[in-house]
C-alpha cells in the first residue's frame, strides 16, 4: 500500500493532513489514500484555523509505545474511561484513529519539540510496510517516566540488596559497590537477569545468582531466582569449611510502578555456617518511593524464620534486618554506552547513590548440652539483640540503554 503523508519540519509534529481514517485501532491496516483531498485534510485548508497539536507518548494495551501528537482539543476531553477514539498523528507521518480501549496511557512530552501549527507542503511517499515496522519497533530514545518525573527510574529493579520483581531489560545492567562488596548485574533478556559479586579487595565471599521476572499486568510483577554464596578460599584454611555455605532460592511479587513499588519475597535458605546444614525461610518486604526526579526513599526488611524449631514450642524468629535509605537517582543513556561516561546524554549522572542505615536484630535462646542424653535443651525464653545502626553506602553505575 502507498499513502502520502505531509510531514512537519520536526519529528513528532506531523500535521493532520491524513485522510480517510477509518481504522478503529492501530492493529488494523493503514488506510490507503491518495494525496489528501478530503476528510481531515479538508479541515486544514489554509483558510481554516490550524489545529493545536501536543506531542505525546501513547502506550497501547499491547505494550507498544508510540510517540507523536494529538489534537489539543481531544486531549482536553479525553479520559481513560472515554469511549471515543483518539486521532493520533505519528512521528513517522501516519495518522490513526485509535480506540480508547486500546490505550493504556497518554503522557505529554513536556520537553519535546515545539508545537507546530502550520502544516508543511512537503509530500513524501512512504512504503507502508516499512512504516508499520517502524511503528512496532519504535523505541523512544528516552522514554518519559510514569508520573510527573522527567525520566525513567533506572534503579527500579533493586532495593538496597534484594531485587524487586521488576526486571532489567535486555542490555541494561549496573555495577554496584556496596561497602566492601562489588557486584555486577546484567539483563541478558527482558526477563532474565544475572548477578555476580565478590568482596573487595580480597574475594573472601563471592556470589553468583540469577533472577527471572516478568510483568503480569499493569501493576504487578512476579519473579523468582537463586543466589549462591561462595567462599573461594574455604579449603585453604579449614577442610571443614563448606565452599558454598549459603544458598537461597526465592520467589517475589512486586506491586506498583517504576517509581513507587512494594515487593514481598520469600524462599528457602540453606546455610552451613552456623550449623551442619539448616534450612530457614527468609521473608523480605521492601519498598521504593520516588520523591522527585533525583530522590527516592528505599527500605528493605528481612525476617529470618526457622520453622523447624516450632515443633519444640520455640519461636521461629531468628533474626531480622531492617534498613532505610535515601537514593539519589541517576539515569541511563538512551543508547548503549557500556563504559567511559559518567554523565548520561540527558545531562544526569549515570550513577545512583544510596545512603542509609541498617539495623540487625537477632533473637537468641539459651541452650544446654546434656552429655548424658547427648542432646541439647533449648530454653523457650528468648532475648533480642540489636546491632546498629550500621551505615549503608552504595554507589551504582548504570550501563545499557534507558528503559524502552
Amino acid at each position, binding site marked *: 500500500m502507498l499513502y502520502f503523508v505531509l510531514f512537519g519540519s520536526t519529528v513528532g509534529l506531523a500535521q493532520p493532513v491524513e485522510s480517510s481514517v477509518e481504522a478503529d485501532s492501530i492493529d488494523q491496516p493503514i488506510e490507503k489514500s491518495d494525496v489528501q483531498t478530503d476528510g481531515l485534510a479538508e479541515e486544514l485548508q489554509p483558510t481554516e484555523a490550524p489545529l493545536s497539536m501536543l506531542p505525546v507518548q501513547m502506550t497501547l494495551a499491547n505494550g507498544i509505545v508510540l510517540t507523536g501528537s494529538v489534537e489539543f482539543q481531544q486531549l482536553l476531553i479525553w479520559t481513560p474511561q472515554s469511549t471515543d477514539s483518539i486521532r493520533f498523528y505519528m512521528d513517522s507521518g501516519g495518522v490513526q484513529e485509535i480506540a480508547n480501549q486500546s490505550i493504556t496511557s497518554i503522557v505529554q512530552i513536556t520537553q519535546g519539540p515545539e508545537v507546530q501549527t502550520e502544516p508543511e507542503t512537503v509530500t513524501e511517499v512512504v512504503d507502508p510496510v516499512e512504516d508499520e515496522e517502524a511503528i512496532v519497533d519504535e523505541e523512544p530514545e528516552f522514554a518519559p517516566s510514569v508520573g510527573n518525573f522527567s525520566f525513567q527510574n533506572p534503579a527500579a529493579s533493586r532495593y538496597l540488596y534484594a531485587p524487586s520483581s521488576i526486571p532489567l531489560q535486555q542490555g541494561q545492567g549496573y555495577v554496584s559497590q556496596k561497602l566492601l562488596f562489588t557486584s555486577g548485574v546484567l539483563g541478558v533478556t527482558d526477563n532474565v537477569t544475572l548477578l555476580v559479586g565478590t568482596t573487595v579487595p580480597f574475594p573472601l565471599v563471592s556470589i553468583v545468582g540469577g533472577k527471572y521476572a516478568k510483568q503480569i499486568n499493569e501493576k504487578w510483577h512476579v519473579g523468582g531466582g537463586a543466589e549462591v554464596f561462595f567462599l573461594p578460599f574455604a579449603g585453604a584454611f579449614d577442610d571443614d569449611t563448606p565452599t558454598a555455605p549459603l544458598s537461597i532460592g526465592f520467589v517475589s511479587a512486586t506491586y506498583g510502578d517504576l517509581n513507587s513499588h512494594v515487593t514481598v519475597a520469600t524462599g528457602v535458605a540453606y546455610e552451613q555456617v552456623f550449623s551442619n546444614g539448616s534450612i530457614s525461610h527468609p521473608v523480605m518486604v521492601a519498598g521504593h518511593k520516588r520523591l522527585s526526579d533525583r530522590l527516592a526513599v528505599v527500605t528493605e526488611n528481612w525476617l529470618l524464620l526457622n520453622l523447624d524449631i516450632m515443633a519444640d514450642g520455640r519461636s521461629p524468629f531468628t533474626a531480622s534486618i531492617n534498613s532505610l535509605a535515601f537514593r539519589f537517582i541517576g539515569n541511563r543513556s538512551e543508547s548503549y554506552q557500556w563504559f567511559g561516561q559518567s554523565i548520561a546524554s540527558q545531562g544526569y549522572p549515570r550513577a545512583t547513590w544510596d545512603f542509609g542505615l541498617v*539495623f540487625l536484630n537477632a533473637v537468641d535462646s539459651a541452650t*544446654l548440652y546434656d552429655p548424658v542424653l547427648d542432646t541439647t535443651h533449648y530454653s523457650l*525464653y528468648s532475648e533480642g539483640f540489636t546491632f546498629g545502626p550500621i551505615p549503608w553506602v552504595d554507589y551504582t553505575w548504570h550501563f545499557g540503554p534507558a528503559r524502552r
Partner: protein
Amino acid sequence: MRVLFLIALLGCTSQYSPSVSEGVWLESEYTSDFNSACPAAGVFQNSLNLTYEFGNTANYSDTGYWYDSSATSIDAVQSYNKSLWDVCGSSGGNARFVCSVPAILTQYDQWKENFPVEQISQEQNCVVQLNYGYSEGVFIDDKTVRMVNYMELVCIDDPESGQSIRTCSGYISSLWTKQ
C-alpha cells in the same frame, strides 16, 4: 518500619526474668554416667524427692564462681541447698546459669547412703570431698529447669598428702519442676 519489625519480634518472644527461679523445685528424671570406679547408676531415683531453692534472685546475675583450690568439704557444699544463687549465676543474664559446685551435691546427705565413695569412706575411714565439679542449668520455661551436674568426688585417707583411695567422676542430668 524497623519499629514494626522489632515489635513483631518482641511480641513473639518471651524474655527470661530471674523471678522465675523463686519457689521450690523438685528434681526427677535422673540419668547418669559415671566412671568404672563409681557404679552409681542406681543411686539417683525419683523417690529421693530432692528439692532445691535458689534464694535471693538479686544474686542471679553474679558469675557464681566459688573457687576453692583444694578439695572442698561436702558439708560446705550442702550449706547452699536453699540458696543456689550464692553459688550459681548467669553471666549472660539469660535463662542459662552455671554453678561452681554440683547442685546435686547440696543434697548429698539425701542420697549418699548407696553412693560408692561414701561406702568406701565408711569402710576405710577416709573423708569424702569434692575434688572438682560444677552444674549447668537452663530454665526451659517458668516451671521447668534442665540440669547437668559434673563431679569428681574423692575419699582422702591422708589429709597431709591429700591422697585419695577412690575417685568417682561422672555426669548426672535431671529435670527440675517447680512445685
